[in-house]
């Protein structure tokens, strides 16, 4: 029982960055922009969050905000490349990853941010609520961003499915020509979607350093950006399934250190492989259902070429 409570109380902390990242990806890809640069935006967010805490001081929420904004800044470049300059979206995404790896490594070395521990954001102390047996530690002893993430999901759900802005976003992803004919600005909508989406990817990255590791080293996200992309496919670009996927993945990631703690002996490097292997399984499992393959926004990955329409 103690094992179960301990495990479940760790789940939200592991699930939150995935939830944030997938939320960002869905906003971006619902507009038809294929974003394979997730790993890059996460890295940039992670480094900026750590950088603020090391250089400015103990201001975790500012750090998280800056993490998101720096994700957006790189996102603007990405958006400029794919919407205005119409660069192949796969290539542009890969360039973002490569660029971010180089940039974070160079900048953190120049600023001397590598391997410097900081206080970061600690878990909320809700006093009496924490004392409630079982659900106390699971629900009431988390950091503030966990609760914010739920709020983000509610707001995003409302915007995407219940407002005309959301309708436009979805329409651009399905049929940009129709939106254009109706007088909508496809490029602007996509640019906005990319900027907002990459904000959440940067925030997810910030979570990795500000809340989880409380230190920056090169390549700290360790491929989680790619796992986020896989989760988007699992989620069929839908918010409710995204949250489910993030929680399932959080459960798995939280389980691995718990197993080691109760003395289950597993070869270290095979344990480290598990998240990637499981992601691969999740992708296989998602594609076994033909519904999933058709779930992608119809114009995903295709640039909008008004001048070339005949």
């Amino acid at each position, binding site marked *: 029982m103690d094992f179960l409570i301990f495990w479940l109380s760790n789940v939200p902390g592991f699930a939150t960055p995935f939830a944030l990242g997938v939320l960002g990806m869905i906003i971006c890809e619902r507009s038809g922009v294929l974003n394979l640069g997730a790993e890059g935006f996460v890295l940039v967010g992670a480094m900026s969050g750590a950088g603020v805490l090391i250089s400015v001081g103990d201001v975790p929420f500012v750090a998280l905000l800056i993490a998101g904004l720096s994700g957006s800044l790189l996102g603007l470049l990405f958006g400029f*490349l794919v919407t205005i*300059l119409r660069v192949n979206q*796969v290539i542009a995404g890969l360039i973002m990853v490569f660029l971010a790896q180089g940039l974070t490594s160079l900048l953190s070395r120049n600023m001397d941010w590598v391997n410097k521990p900081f206080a970061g954001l600690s878990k909320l102390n809700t006093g009496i609520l924490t004392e409630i047996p079982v659900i106390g530690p699971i629900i009431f002893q988390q950091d503030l961003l966990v609760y914010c993430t739920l709020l983000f999901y509610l707001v995003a759900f409302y915007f995407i499915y219940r407002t005309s802005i959301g309708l436009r976003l979805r329409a651009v992803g399905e049929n940009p020509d129709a939106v254009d004919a109706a007088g909508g600005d496809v490029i602007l909508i996509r640019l906005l979607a990319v900027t907002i989406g990459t904000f959440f990817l940067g925030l997810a990255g910030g979570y990795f350093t500000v809340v989880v590791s409380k230190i920056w080293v090169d390549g700290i996200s360790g491929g989680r950006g790619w796992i986020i992309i896989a989760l988007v496919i699992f989620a069929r670009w839908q918010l409710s399934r995204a949250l489910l996927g993030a929680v399932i993945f959080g459960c798995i990631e939280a389980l691995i250190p718990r197993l080691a703690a109760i003395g289950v002996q597993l070869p270290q490097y095979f344990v480290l492989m598990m998240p990637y292997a499981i992601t691969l399984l999740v992708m296989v499992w998602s594609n076994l259902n033909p519904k999933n393959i058709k779930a992608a926004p119809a114009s995903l990955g295709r640039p909008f070429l008004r001048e070339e329409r005949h």
Partner: protein
Amino acid sequence: MNSYPTINKRKGVKLELRDPMNFVNKFIVLILSIFTGLFISFIILVLSGVSGSALWKEFVVYIFTSEKNLSSVLIQASPFVVAGLAAAVAFKARFWNIGIEGQMIFGAIAATYIAINDIGPGSVRLLLMFTAAGLGGVFWILLPAFLKIKLDVNEIISTLLMNYIAFNFLLHLLYGSWRDPSTGFPNSEQYDVFEILPLLGWQSLNFSSVIAVLLVVIIFWLFVSSRFGFVLNVLHASSDMAKYMGIRVSLVILIVTVVSGFLSGICGFLVSSGIESRMTQSFFLGFGFSGILISFLARDNPIGILVVSLLFATLVIGGQSLQVFYQIPFAMVQLMQAIIVMCVAASEFFIRYRLIFSF
């Protein structure tokens, strides 16, 4: 022609489709954009505290006036060429092989297995290692290829996830049973003399360059004059058209991924046997992405891959001396590659369109 009215209310800038540009102009744009990328990198380096004259010396003077450095560039270029070919072959069938690094790891693991267990007589050891490396690479691409063909699992993500799995397996070996017994360092024991690619007689240039050039010739033949090359071109242009022509698309994808995996495995072998003489824990770093970028810059043309690889290798060798003498992290090289490719990718816009300013 092509004067469709285009309206852009807000900016006063209009876009117009150009007539297709001829080869010479395209080439000029390509060179210009590469130089733009180099110039941006130059500014970043100067901001990081390296003087302009030092950069000129490290990247141009020392490399092209010293035979030793020139040969280092050529040695460094060989695995780049092969990684570029691996990416290009797969991309011809619209299969994005992002898993080159994982396949390199398994190629090198297979070759190293032959080396440390002394399988086969010494005279054919290198040939065995070469073959094993290729097959190791094939082994690591088969699962993503199969998943792509049978279930349409996105190969970009599956091949990438396979990289992380391969990397952890490599660490498992190097921190476990394959740790160098003589030094205790987490890399394989050094290969024997007959397990290292032989020198060619000029500086430290070795057989890896010959292998790289041979592979370029073979892939060039495959793309340009073979029947299979024609099939690939059709598939690259439109998979629907390929289907209507009776081409078995899944079979083509299988062949192409096997070739791509084989090349990646060879690439791993060229680094471990041709450069490092052992299998280290980071020998593959950067080759996967570089391969994709090289193939993109070269428009999947094997001869172009050869040229771009030389450029990338020059950046790497220059970057190594910057690392030693100016403490610039090696990631700078990665950043430069990304910036150059970004400029070239952006330049396609200006090849396709003409901007018309009307104020």
